[in-house]
């Protein structure tokens, strides 16, 4: 059997037609199928949806951390503070006693929040800095020579001698003597 004969044999073996009722049977079957509109989601829409969900998730996960670690970019103004702010006492809320009938509203005192951290400077330091800046602006101090000055300081001995303490030394008397003197003073009075 050669190739053509074989091909013809196979073709002949497969040249079978379905019964005349077959097509009608198939159509009947398909019409009886429950009518469901073909669900077709374009892949671009699906991809866009997934990308959006990922983006939202990323924002939700990473945003709080970033705001916690954010660096304050604006340099706070140098404000001389003469008084140390009073410490704020935060009232602790105790659980109400079971015997008390009238309810009391407890409004907790919260410390006012500031957007920028408070920087404390000694007023004398601030005044010195301000006068230095003013001197540079008025050209009383030659800023171009400052580098040379700082280099010279660095080259010089870096150990700084402690300044002598200005003021009279405090004399502390023994306790017994002090009491005796007090009693004597009381008598004289």
């Amino acid at each position, binding site marked *: 059997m050669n190739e053509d004969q*074989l091909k013809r044999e196979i*073709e002949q*073996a*497969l040249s*079978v037609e*379905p019964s005349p009722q077959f097509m009608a049977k198939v*159509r009947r079957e398909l019409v009886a199928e429950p009518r469901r509109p073909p669900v077709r989601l374009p892949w671009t829409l699906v991809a866009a949806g997934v990308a959006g969900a990922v983006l939202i998730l990323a924002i939700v996960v990473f945003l709080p951390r970033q705001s916690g670690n954010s660096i304050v970019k604006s340099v706070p103004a140098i404000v001389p503070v003469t008084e140390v702010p009073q410490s704020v006492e935060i009232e602790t809320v105790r659980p109400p006693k079971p015997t008390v009938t009238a309810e009391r509203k407890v409004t907790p005192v919260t410390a006012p929040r500031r957007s920028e951290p408070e920087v404390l400077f000694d007023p004398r330091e601030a005044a010195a800095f301000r006068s230095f800046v003013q001197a540079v602006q008025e050209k009383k101090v030659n800023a171009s020579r400052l580098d040379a000055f700082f280099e010279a300081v660095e080259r010089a001995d870096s150990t700084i001698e402690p300044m002598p303490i200005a003021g009279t030394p405090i004399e502390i008397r023994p306790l017994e003597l002090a009491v005796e003197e007090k009693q004597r003073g009381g008598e004289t009075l």
Partner: protein
Amino acid sequence: MTVDLDQEFEAQLAESTRLAFRVAYGVLRHREDAEDVAQEALTKAYRKRGSLREHERFRAWLVRITWRMAIDHQRSHKRRVVWETADVANLGTNESAVDILASRERSASLWQAIDALPEKLRIVTVLAGIQEHDIREVALLLELPEGTIKSRLFLARQRLKELLQ
């Protein structure tokens, strides 16, 4: 009879019914069984019509699903398989009983040889045996390169010749 299938599927159905039937028949060689399997495959295709709009992809999918279902059907009904001989219907009325017997015998041995082929070669043989299919059509239906189909078909015919001798 009024049929309100959607128009697109209607067009696909007209030309795919015969294809599904022939693929099923290529495995089962039993008209009624082949019709049942083809009908089942077409029903499945109808349910999935939303994702099978492309014409060539639809046909390729239908061939694959029909082939698989026919193989499953053949396995589950192996005991009651009664093969038909197609050429009986094609013989003229003046053919003698001897001719009919010889034709049946030839057909049976051919199908036996086709069944003995590995599945990859078997499906190529069946699809190429469907009269209107050339290499390009088979390549499209199996979603394979034409070169692959050619070499598989060559191999399949070599094996068949060996088996039939």
